[in-house]
């Protein structure tokens, strides 16, 4: 590590020798002449590019004199490539018009290979949620938005991609959730705190399915979800959003514990601007939910800040901070089936207070048209205390850093490499005062053959140490192919090894909560996986896009919670073997281009504990979704339908032990949501009004044992952009 300053110095020297003053600028519009904000402009054959600002303008500098072609892309529009543009010493203006399309394969992602790629160029399955997917549904926390992503399911607040995770009360995650590439798992439980992510600042959410340990290391064994935040505005912009909603009365009078419709509300204020070379965005949100269940309320304040400082035209220093202050009730399990919205008597009045914040700094530099450098560091602090008889507390800090380079060696060979490290420290009466450390190095090579085949080979080496436990290392190789058979058809295949180190919570938790006693297991081993996938994407003209993927994930020493029969205590154990096989089908119908679209998907999962020949918990065998959207002028309307087959296995031990009465009650899920919006611009106001009705049928279902999912609720929201 002591050589890092020397390497950086050399890279800076290299930059000064190759930076050139050639400039391309211009404006990107749609076919109606409307400026497109956030369109990506990339100079082909280089790593140079830019995004358009609010007036659709872009500027790319530092080009060597020569002849270039540009690729322009934006979510919802067909990617286009310009003709040849000659660059000399004088700036050259290139304006461009993009054509609308609903086809997802044209979308651009940065998460799969740690650089910008089109979805159709990826060798692995991926999907993207856009900011409108989030705002149109009045999503107040990212985990709700993820329920609409194909192949993803949420077990309460625990995310699972293609059945990677069951439910373990937040301890450990098999999906790495990051914000602009910065990991967001806590240092103690290793869980994801979704509330710290500012939903109104999300530009898009990229979801990479399948083991991604070869680039991202532990916790990415089941995939990666990367939240990309919005770009900072060049001109002053004020965004205000407020909402008010009500839960309906429960479907059965026995459950109506309060006799009232329970309200929820929130307000967000965001300001963004640039002053000279400094751009900034400040956002503040207050939200309150009195809860459809007793002791399931929350009150939270969140803050978000991001600043960009352009050190040079080709280098940027970004600072980002996110803050969460939350007080919430702690609903553990229902009392019984006649009181599903009330906690058990012994859990009454439980409350958790928490303060969490994340600070990050990112330095990006285009050292040459073929060499890109990114250096980042972050600190994630969590501090929580529950007000129960056990008075559990935990203070955790995790310091993380990464140096990443992208280097185009020759036209057909592109290398991505980096070093990443994290160190954590915990002080808790639950976990003790353990610390953790891991370091990893990765290298990925992407080779494009002259015929339309791209071969990707990559590997990562990690060393992890969890306090007093014996340190271990892991080597995670990956190989992948993307073959473009025609403009309409792309084949992909990948195989890779993944691994996940146990979290401090999984190895060291010692507590009693909600009638469950949890004991540590210091003998817990890391789990590993071998993931394979093959897929095909085919477009039937511009109207229909189809995607089929077959996948198989073999897990070794799979970590799952369970009851130790010796003493009846819950502990985390290594299952010797687990296997998850399945298929995923996605169909996108652009029924009336620009006005009416239908997105459907179906996932089949066969998830088994091979050793005991039992189904893995909380993995529905069949999942299907359909989203229909219609818009005409200022008016839009849509519905989302979600289906889960009845979960085969859940924590039956808790039923057998009498901890959760009627805990074996479970049903298939039929969930229907409705949304409509009206653009107030037609009334001369720069805003939008939304009406959302979630769980329109007031259908009663569970995601995890003893927890009824939200009953029917409706909200009105209003947003303004000045």
């Amino acid at each position, binding site marked *: 590590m002591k050589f890092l300053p020397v390497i950086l110095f050399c890279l800076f020297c290299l930059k000064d020798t190759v930076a050139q003053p050639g400039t391309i600028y211009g404006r990107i519009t749609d076919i109606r002449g409307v400026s497109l904000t956030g369109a990506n402009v990339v100079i082909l054959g280089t790593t140079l590019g830019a995004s358009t600002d609010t007036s659709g303008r872009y500027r790319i500098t530092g080009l060597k004199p020569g002849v270039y072609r540009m690729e322009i892309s934006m979510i919802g529009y067909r990617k286009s490539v310009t003709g040849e543009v000659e660059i000399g010493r004088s700036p050259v203006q290139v304006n461009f018009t993009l054509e609308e399309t609903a086809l997802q394969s044209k979308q651009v992602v940065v998460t799969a290979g740690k650089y910008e790629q089109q979805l159709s160029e990826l060798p692995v399955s991926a999907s993207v949620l856009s900011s409108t997917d989030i705002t149109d549904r009045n999503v107040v926390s990212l985990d709700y938005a993820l329920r609409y992503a194909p192949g993803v399911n949420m077990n309460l607040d625990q995310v699972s991609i293609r059945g990677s995770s069951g439910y373990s009360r937040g301890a450990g995650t098999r999906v790495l959730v990051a914000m602009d590439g910065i990991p967001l798992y806590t240092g103690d439980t290793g869980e994801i705190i979704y509330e710290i992510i500012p939903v109104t600042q999300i530009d898009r959410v990229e979801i990479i399915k399948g083991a991604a340990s070869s680039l991202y290391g532990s916790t990415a064994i089941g995939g990666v979800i990367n939240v990309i935040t919005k770009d900072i505005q060049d001109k002053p912009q004020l965004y205000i959003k407020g909402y008010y909603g009500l839960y309906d009365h429960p*479907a*059965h009078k*026995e*459950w109506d514990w309060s006799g009232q419709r329970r309200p929820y509300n929130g307000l967000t204020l965001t300001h963004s601007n640039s002053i000279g070379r400094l751009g900034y965005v400040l956002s503040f949100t207050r939200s309150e939910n009195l809860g459809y269940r007793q002791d399931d309320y929350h009150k939270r304040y969140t803050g978000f800040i991001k600043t960009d400082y352009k050190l040079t035209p080709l280098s940027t220093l970004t600072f980002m901070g996110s803050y969460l202050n939350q007080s919430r009730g702690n609903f553990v399990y229902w009392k*019984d*089936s*006649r009181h*599903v919205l009330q906690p058990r008597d012994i859990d009454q009045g439980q409350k958790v207070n928490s303060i969490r914040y994340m600070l990050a700094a990112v330095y990006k530099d285009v050292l040459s048209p073929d060499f890109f450098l990114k250096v980042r560091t972050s600190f994630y602090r969590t501090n929580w205390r529950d007000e129960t008889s056990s008075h559990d507390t935990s203070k955790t800090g995790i310091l993380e850093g990464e140096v990443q380079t992208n280097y185009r060696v020759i036209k057909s060979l592109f290398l991505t490499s980096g070093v990443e490290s994290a160190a954590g420290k915990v002080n808790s009466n639950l976990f003790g005062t353990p610390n953790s450390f891991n370091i990893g190095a990765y290298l990925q090579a992407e080779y494009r053959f002259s015929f339309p085949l791209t071969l990707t080979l990559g590997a990562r080496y990690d060393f992890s140490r969890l306090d007093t436990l014996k340190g271990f290392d892991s080597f995670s190789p990956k190989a992948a192919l993307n073959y473009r058979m025609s403009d309409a058809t792309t084949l992909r295949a990948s195989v890779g090894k993944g691994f996940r180190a146990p979290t401090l919570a999984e190895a060291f938790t010692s507590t009693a909560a909600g009638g469950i006693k949890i004991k540590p297991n210091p003998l817990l081993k890391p789990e590993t996986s071998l993931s394979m996938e093959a897929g095909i994407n085919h477009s039937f003209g511009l109207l229909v896009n189809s995607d089929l993927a077959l996948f198989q994930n073999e897990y070794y020493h799979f970590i799952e919670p369970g*009851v*130790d*029969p*010796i*003493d*009846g205590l819950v502990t985390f154990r290594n299952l010797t073997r687990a296997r998850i096989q399945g298929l995923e089908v996605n169909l996108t*119908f652009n*029924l009336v281009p620009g006005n009416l679209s*239908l997105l459907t998907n179906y996932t089949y999962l066969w998830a088994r504990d091979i050793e005991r020949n039992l189904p893995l918990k909380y993995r529905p065998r069949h999942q*299907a979704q*359909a989203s*229909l959207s219609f818009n005409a002028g200022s008016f839009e309307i849509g519905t989302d*339908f979600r*289906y889960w087959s009845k979960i085969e296995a859940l924590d*039956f*031990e808790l*039923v*057998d*032990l*009498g*901890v959760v*009465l*009627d805990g074996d*009650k*479970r*049903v*298939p899920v*039929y969930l*229907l949501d409705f949304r409509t919006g009206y653009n107030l611009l037609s009334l001369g106001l720069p805003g939008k009004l939304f009406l959302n009705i979630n769980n329109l*049928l*007031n*259908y*009663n*279902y*569970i995601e995890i044992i003893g927890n*009824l999912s939200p009953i029917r609720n409706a909200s009105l929201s209003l947003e303004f952009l000045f």
Partner: protein
Amino acid sequence: MKILIYFVFFSTLFFLSGCDGGITPSPEGAPKEAGFGGSVAFKGKWPAGVTRTHIVAFRNPLNSAGDFNALNLAFVSDSIPFGTTGIVFSSLINPQLPIKSGEYAYVAVAQSKTPSLSLDRKDWFVSGVYYANGDTTKPGRLVIPENTFVTDIHITCDFNHPPPQPPGGQ
């Protein structure tokens, strides 16, 4: 295109037709089944030739070989597979002889090596006994009140250190 829209419409209707409101409350005053649940852990190597293993409960203490009889026997669980290292059980799940509310003096794990089911005391041996409140000097008493499911009944079967055998065994 119309065909597609019709397909989507009727598919949705088909799915929703299976939707009956979901989870419902149990009827008011429905008696809750009395029973007990917990776990059994097995330590050491299983004895060769064991043909059946059951959790059993007797109403009265086993003070003589005669107390091991069908009238005193109040509960027999489903058979536990040979070689199991541990199970979590509920008396409500597949009992061979269901239990009722009441008091039980002796709860144990009993094993047999006979090829056919026998109620002869000499055909059985006890590999684990339920002890209450950590007192391993005498068998624990299990009390199941009316309409109550008693939890946390844990039994350890240590094949290397078997518990005292009731009278009448081999």
